[in-house]
């Protein structure tokens, strides 16, 4: 068989390095998004190594390709934990890949840092979530839209768990807050023709299209929306899976004036962000952009490093204990690990896409919002998370 070598000789403690895993799709459809996230993680690791590493040891990276396939993610996660015995893993993007590796991390007592906003309803003891929970992105966005843009919502999303769950939350919220739902459509991943759906949207005349499409589909949707002669005055879209990187692919011209909701933009005005953006561009090219998942992935590495320093060990239990309440001055501002569910406190920002592709913040919460993956603190969300 092809699997040579018996026991990859390693153990984190007796060497001068600490092994960590980086597990993203470097091939397949998800590579579009995940490669940049991997780059951000590598940058953070390089920075930390340049400053002497953690616990005086250099961080050694084992990269694996999840190949956009959940089963491969599971295999590679097992490999990282059982074979390489890494101290922690930074990885995944889609919820499917996260769900696939979750039991692996739980069974092998590993640690995963997951950097992407997601649908919530989850809080594994072996995962730290550095992206937004629904109450840090979707819920405030809907709130704001209802107040500022209108009551008639049309929901469009890719057919998978994040959009479906997100829309369930939105529908509950609309119902509670007096909004109306005029349409809900899902398209398979990679779908490229939106003429029919746009026709349906035109026919329903909603005030807001809440968009949870993923990846390539967004490009098609926005190009075709513009061609159909719909402009942002008649109808505004708000997207939660489109960040600066995606805007570049869609073409800023096709999206100018549309809204997005995130915790971080390249334009976010903090001193940390200025250096972050500068370093990222210096490392990967001036034409590259930073965005929310990239920043969240970068934060994840620093948070882990800080927790390890604090714990004085890479032992998962000790790191977890140390991570509780840990704060970090991230490019997006101050973030803090919520001990109860291992999510981050994050500031919510609604932004408007500009003609040059940057995103201008139009509204933000006054400070970091407490993560609430199960929406326990929202009355209208009762029954969503049973």
């Amino acid at each position, binding site marked *: 068989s092809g699997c040579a070598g018996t026991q990859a000789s390693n153990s984190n403690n007796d060497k001068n390095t600490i092994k960590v895993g980086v597990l993203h799709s470097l091939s397949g459809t998800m590579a579009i998004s995940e490669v940049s996230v991997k780059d951000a993680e590598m940058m953070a690791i390089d920075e930390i190594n340049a400053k002497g590493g953690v616990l005086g040891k250099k961080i050694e990276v084992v990269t694996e390709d999840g190949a956009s396939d959940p089963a491969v993610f599971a295999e590679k996660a097992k490999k990282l934990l059982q074979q390489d015995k890494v101290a922690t893993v930074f990885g995944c993007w889609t919820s499917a890949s996260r769900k696939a590796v979750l039991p692996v991390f739980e069974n092998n007592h590993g640690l995963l840092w997951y950097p992407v906003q997601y649908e919530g*309803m989850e809080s594994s003891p072996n995962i730290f979530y550095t992206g937004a929970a629904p109450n840090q992105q979707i819920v405030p966005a809907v709130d704001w839209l209802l107040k500022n843009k209108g009551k008639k919502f049309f929901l469009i999303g890719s*057919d998978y768990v994040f959009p479906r769950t997100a829309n369930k939350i939105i529908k509950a919220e609309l119902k509670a807050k007096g909004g109306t739902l005029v349409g809900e459509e899902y398209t398979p991943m990679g779908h490229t023709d939106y003429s029919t759906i746009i026709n349906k949207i035109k026919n329903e005349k909603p005030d807001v299209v809440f968009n949870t499409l993923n990846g390539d589909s967004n490009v098609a949707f926005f190009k075709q929306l513009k061609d159909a002669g719909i402009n942002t005055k008649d109808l505004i879209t708000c997207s939660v899976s489109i960040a600066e990187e995606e805007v570049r692919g869609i073409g800023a011209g096709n999206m100018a004036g549309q809204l997005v909701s995130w915790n971080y933009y390249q334009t976010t005005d903090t001193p940390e962000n200025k250096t972050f953006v500068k370093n990222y561009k210096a490392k990967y090219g001036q034409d590259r952009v930073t965005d929310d998942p990239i920043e969240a992935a970068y934060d994840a590495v620093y948070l882990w490093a800080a927790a390890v320093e604090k714990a004085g060990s890479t032992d998962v239990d000790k790191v977890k204990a140390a991570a509780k309440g840990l704060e970090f001055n991230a490019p997006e501002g101050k973030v803090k690990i919520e001990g109860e569910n291992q999510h981050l406190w994050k500031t919510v920002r609604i932004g408007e896409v500009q003609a040059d592709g940057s995103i201008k913040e139009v509204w933000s919460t006054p400070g970091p919002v407490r993560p609430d993956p199960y929406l326990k603190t929202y009355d209208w969300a009762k029954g969503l998370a049973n």
Partner: protein
Amino acid sequence: MFVKKFIKAPANWTFLIIILSLLAAPLFLSVFRINLLGKFISYAILAIGIDLIWGYTGILSLGHGVFFGLGAYAMGMYLKLEAAHGKLPDFMSWSGLEHLPAIWAPFSNPLSLLFIIIIPALLAAVIGYLTFKNRIRGVYFSILSQALSLIFVVLFIGQQAYTGGTNGLTSFQTIFGLSLAADNTKYILYYASILFLILVYTYCRFIVNHRIGKILIAIRDGENRVRFSGYNPTIYKIFVYISSAAIAGIAGAIFVPQVGIISPAEMGIVPSIEMVIWVAIGGRGTLIGAVIGAILVNGLKSGISESFPEIWSYFLGLTFIVVVIFMPEGLVGLVKKYASHLFTWHNKKEKIIQKAPSIN
């Protein structure tokens, strides 16, 4: 008779050697590698089934991922209910279901594991009956089977509340009460996989060694001529399709507990094509080639992607190209060719056998 025949063929010797090495593998490999090898064995089983239908009968199904998936889902549903301990599986509740759907109900019973074979076989029977009766052949069948796989992927993704959507079924805990996380269970599953590999190989070897095997090849060469020899190829094709689908189902069921997840991504067009490639690389129409191809390609894929995560696709792609172009008969064909060069005495022996047709 059969045993005698079995021992005569070099392919069977090779198979025996493979089985012995697989049995001995736990002495040398870590439990992670064994677990991985278990997955490859499930692929090998699948590949044998594909070789039966493609290598021997000439029907190229580009939708075998569906049968693999159905078997895997049947197993997954059983494991999921075992993990749920009588409660509603996690994904159902976050998808808004309140009661266990009727199609799930039977899966709390171990007898339901028969569905691993029954469901793929039934689907194959229906599809096979329709298409083969209507004489849909060649590339038309291939494309049709591709459409089938697309339909199932879209359906399984769309019915999130019933199937787990893109996430598929995951987070299993135990199998027949044994913890899936335990090393012992992994060894048990591994040996069970080998057992099924032996069973499936023997079944297929039995088929191709009997007259039906020759009829299948005849169908591959000229289906209409078979008709004018008095056989109804439709029946034979349906039979092979069902066999192959059931084998794929078994493979899927073996895959699930070892990998810990089944999702629509495993039943789509891309994996379906890759399955065929394993067989091509090993050498079609030999059964043993399918086993070698599946284990080798997947081993290589895992190995190379670990060493070169950023560029392993190049290796994989180039391997496919080189093998198909320069080894049209696959690895087994290559070995055969060189073996016949090296051992001319072998030909003499063959001639002696030829003189005595009673062996057949």
